[in-house]
């Protein structure tokens, strides 16, 4: 029977699987970028030339941000599993996740000058970062309410 504990366990498994998957993808970046560079040669950005180095740097930077996001997401889920939901530590995790999403937008924004698609990905990452930030603000309010509830006898 499906329940919230299994749902939480699935989330933890997915986060850890994605963490490993990104490491594997990062190892394949040179091959993938080289293939992309020789396959899509038409100019679709402001700058010309090979995108091998810009895209490689962009993907590695984004991978680091992504891994850090997943690391803190995993910690958040472990806390939730331990029934510690509205605690200041989780707010700090959400704040970090939000900042890493916003940071991930920067390399894609720069890559957008070579390929316009980079701007779209940067916008998506920034949008996601802002959403997480709003969730963090809600959590902060919830922490105060939880504390008040805990100390109401």
């Amino acid at each position, binding site marked *: 029977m499906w329940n919230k504990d299994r749902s939480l366990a699935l989330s933890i498994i997915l986060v850890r699987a994605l963490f490993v998957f990104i490491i594997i993808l990062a190892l394949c970046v040179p091959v993938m970028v080289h293939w992309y560079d020789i396959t899509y040669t038409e100019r679709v950005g402001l700058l010309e030339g090979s995108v091998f180095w810009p895209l490689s740097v962009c993907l590695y930077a984004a991978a680091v941000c992504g891994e850090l996001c997943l690391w803190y997401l995993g910690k958040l889920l472990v806390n939730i599993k331990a029934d510690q939901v509205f605690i200041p530590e989780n707010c700090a995790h959400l704040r970090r996740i939000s900042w890493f999403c916003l940071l991930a937008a920067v390399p894609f924004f720069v890559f957008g000058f070579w390929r316009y698609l980079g701007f779209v990905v940067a916008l998506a990452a920034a949008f996601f970062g802002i959403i997480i930030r709003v969730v963090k603000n809600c959590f902060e309010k919830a922490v105060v309410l939880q*504390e*008040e509830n805990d*100390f*109401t*006898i």
Partner: protein
Amino acid sequence: MRIIVNLDVMMAKRKISSGELAKRIDITPANLSILKTGKAKAIRFSTLEKLCEVLDCQPGDILEFRKEED
């Protein structure tokens, strides 16, 4: 803190232990400790009612308002 909880004073007057009081008003000893040490943020009317009943006193005997000095 401007509201002072004088629970320990009343408990001493009535010669009742923390464990017994917690049992009689149906709260955990940990919560009673929070109340006694003044860490509580609020007190429910139901808890106050039980405390007054068990300790045979008025709410004013348990809670006291003290003006903060500058």
